[in-house]
């Protein structure tokens, strides 16, 4: 079969939240230019917002919150290990993005006077903007993509990046990939690449055992983390895992941000509240974890005390948008919000800066450490960036990618594709190899095994002995990647994803071993180093693939804050617990 060959000025990999705004921004600035949006699914329903979203978690709306407040809050929630400039850039650009969404027809909750109806969920500030009718968000973005004239290429998955090396300089040259329908190999040349591939959402195995029963959209298998890693770009904070409080078994959000402002809250088996704030932070997750594993567990979301019309309103939101099938999950068990508590658990691990802090290292211009390569959204290192962060940073990334391709040493054609033939041939052979192994191991079985091992060895709390054992198992499993077999292009996609997942597992294990302290609550809770150690570890831990092909670690200092945060504030997220009343 012939290769699919595409060439572009800018290629965006992943057409979810960040990828859509990046492509729109780039194409609008380049009316005659070629902006390609590459998507392994179909942009009309891909990514975390396939069925829209029920709210913005981090809107910084004048009159309700300020960029200073927000930057301070996110610094506290991340125990101080942040690049404040990157958060600041989000904070000041998010309000224009929100106004743009409003103009595009995205429906936000407003008060009778037409003001945005912002709610408090975070420990300190007010940033949550409900979207009770947010189910059409992806349709609206898709319409804007079409209007801008972006060239959308659906069902092609990026598998590796193409890097040009000359005179000791490295820069991006394109993307290699697989057409997951036809099985054709794809070569996409570009001057700049924006990665927007979402979270590493298929890392741990859901307790149900169902491979695709994940919190994240399971199309996001950690592709972006792996693509950046193999291209030699730096990643950061990989030890700061994503773990979410979810509806047990359903493994989706309950969702406390919708129900909290309406009077819902988390309780233990005694019916008592035990956390001050339902905002998802590692510190909150640690309290949740402790409660679950104590005699006061399990933990529930309590709504049964609410008035009938409030429950109807909650159902109207939760059963139409974001993860609407939670309605039929509850109904299938004969449960209702009016009569039953919603049993909660904590999820398997993932990597996602949108919710926690691990991702491809970017600065406030969304630049990675590889020239011409940008990253945005859940896979890029701006912590707790969520939906509005992905949308805003997509746009920021495109703005700087445009400047980059206009700069004089990039504006030319770049090296001939023929000069990459060795890298291209090797990747084609690697990606298509499972097709030739008619009796090879089916990808779903190997994936199950990798992710089961992730649960066994990496689920926090962490210890060096367990993590080192885990690494031995991962090394063994890496050899089995070479035995994968695929009988069609779909399985070929799943086979390549096994490689992404394993890469993420190894990065997660090694980063966690590197940081010999505990931080971010449950996300990096080490039983062998239970204390936070600011004297030694007030640094970013970054990793990259060295010239010899091994994983290298480096520490980067925390850049001076643009918004001062006092020492006591830096510990405020460690005080989320509500003590049990003395007589119970």
């Amino acid at each position, binding site marked *: 079969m012939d290769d699919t060959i595409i060439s572009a000025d800018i290629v965006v990999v992943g057409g979810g939240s960040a990828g859509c705004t990046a492509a729109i921004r780039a194409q609008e600035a380049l009316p005659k230019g070629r902006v390609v949006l590459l998507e392994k699914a179909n942009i009309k329903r891909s990514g975390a917002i396939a069925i829209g979203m029920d709210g913005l978690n981090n809107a910084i709306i004048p009159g309700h919150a300020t960029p200073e407040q927000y930057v301070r809050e996110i610094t506290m929630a991340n125990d101080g290990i942040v690049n404040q400039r990157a958060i600041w850039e989000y904070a000041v650009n998010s309000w224009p993005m929100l106004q743009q969404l409003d103009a595009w027809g995205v429906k936000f909750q407003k008060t009778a006077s037409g003001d945005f109806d912002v709610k408090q969920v975070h420990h300190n500030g007010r940033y949550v903007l409900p979207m009770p009718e947010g189910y059409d968000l992806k349709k609206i973005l898709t319409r804007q993509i079409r209007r801008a004239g972006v060239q959308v290429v659906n069902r092609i998955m990026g598998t590796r990046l193409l890097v040009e090396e000359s005179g000791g300089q490295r820069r991006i040259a394109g993307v290699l990939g697989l057409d997951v329908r036809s099985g054709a190999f794809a070569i996409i040349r570009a001057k700049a690449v924006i990665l927007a591939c979402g979270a590493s959402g298929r890392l741990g195995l859901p307790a149900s055992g169902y491979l695709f029963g994940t919190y994240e959209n399971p199309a996001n298998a950690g592709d972006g983390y792996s693509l950046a890693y193999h291209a030699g770009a730096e990643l950061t904070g990989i030890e700061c895992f994503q773990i979410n409080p979810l509806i047990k078994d359903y*493994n989706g959000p309950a969702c406390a941000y919708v129900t909290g402002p309406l009077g819902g809250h988390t309780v233990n088996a005694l019916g008592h509240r035990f956390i001050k704030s339902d905002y998802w932070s590692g510190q909150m997750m640690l309290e949740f974890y402790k409660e679950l594993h104590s005699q006061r567990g399990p933990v529930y979301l309590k709504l049964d005390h609410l008035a009938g019309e409030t429950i109807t309103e909650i159902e109207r939101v939760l059963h139409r948008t974001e993860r*609407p099938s939670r309605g039929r999950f509850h109904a299938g068990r004969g449960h209702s919000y009016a009569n039953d508590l919603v049993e909660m658990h904590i999820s398997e691990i993932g990597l996602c800066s949108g919710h926690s802090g691990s991702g491809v290292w970017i600065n406030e211009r969304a630049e990675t450490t590889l020239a011409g390569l940008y990253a945005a959204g859940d896979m890029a290192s701006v912590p707790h960036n969520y939906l509005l962060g992905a949308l805003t940073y997509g746009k920021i990334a495109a703005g700087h990618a445009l400047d980059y391709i206009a700069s004089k040493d990039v504006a030319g054609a770049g090296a001939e594709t023929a000069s990459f033939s060795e890298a291209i041939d090797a990747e084609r052979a690697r990606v298509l190899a499972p097709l030739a192994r008619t009796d090879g191991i089916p990808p779903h079985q190997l994936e199950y095994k990798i992710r089961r091992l992730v649960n066994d060895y990496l689920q926090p709390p962490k210890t060096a002995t367990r993590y080192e054992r885990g690494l031995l198992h991962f090394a063994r499993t890496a050899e089995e990647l070479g035995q994968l077999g695929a009988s069609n292009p779909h399985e070929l996609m799943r086979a390549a994803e096994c490689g992404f997942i394993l890469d993420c597992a190894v990065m997660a294990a090694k980063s966690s071993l590197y940081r010999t302290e505990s931080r971010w609550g449950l996300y990096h809770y080490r039983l062998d180093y239970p204390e936070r150690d600011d004297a030694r570890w007030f640094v970013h831990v970054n990793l990259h693939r060295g010239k010899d092909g091994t994983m290298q670690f480096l520490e980067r200092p925390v850049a001076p804050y643009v918004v001062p945060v006092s020492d006591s504030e830096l510990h405020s997220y460690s005080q989320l617990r509500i003590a049990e009343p003395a007589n119970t």
Partner: protein
Amino acid sequence: MPDLPNREPAKAAQAKIVGNAQAVRRFDVPVVVDAAKCVSGCHICVESCPVDCLAIDLATSKATMKHDDCWYCLACEIDCPNDAITVKIPVLLR
């Protein structure tokens, strides 16, 4: 009775180098298509699926769940113009 010979060293070595064998297993899948309502030639649900687990069955020309990879997101069900699809919660979660 003679001692059972210890064939483990030889068989263990062989197990490392023989090829793989396969069996086919039935799966209960979450997406149920009402063939009477599904219109031949329409592809809408197949295009909607974010994990590409639906396909048109070549024998019947109707949509079917080909791979057990479902996120129970409901995109296919919502987008089907003929209400031919019902998504159930996957049995392992139900």
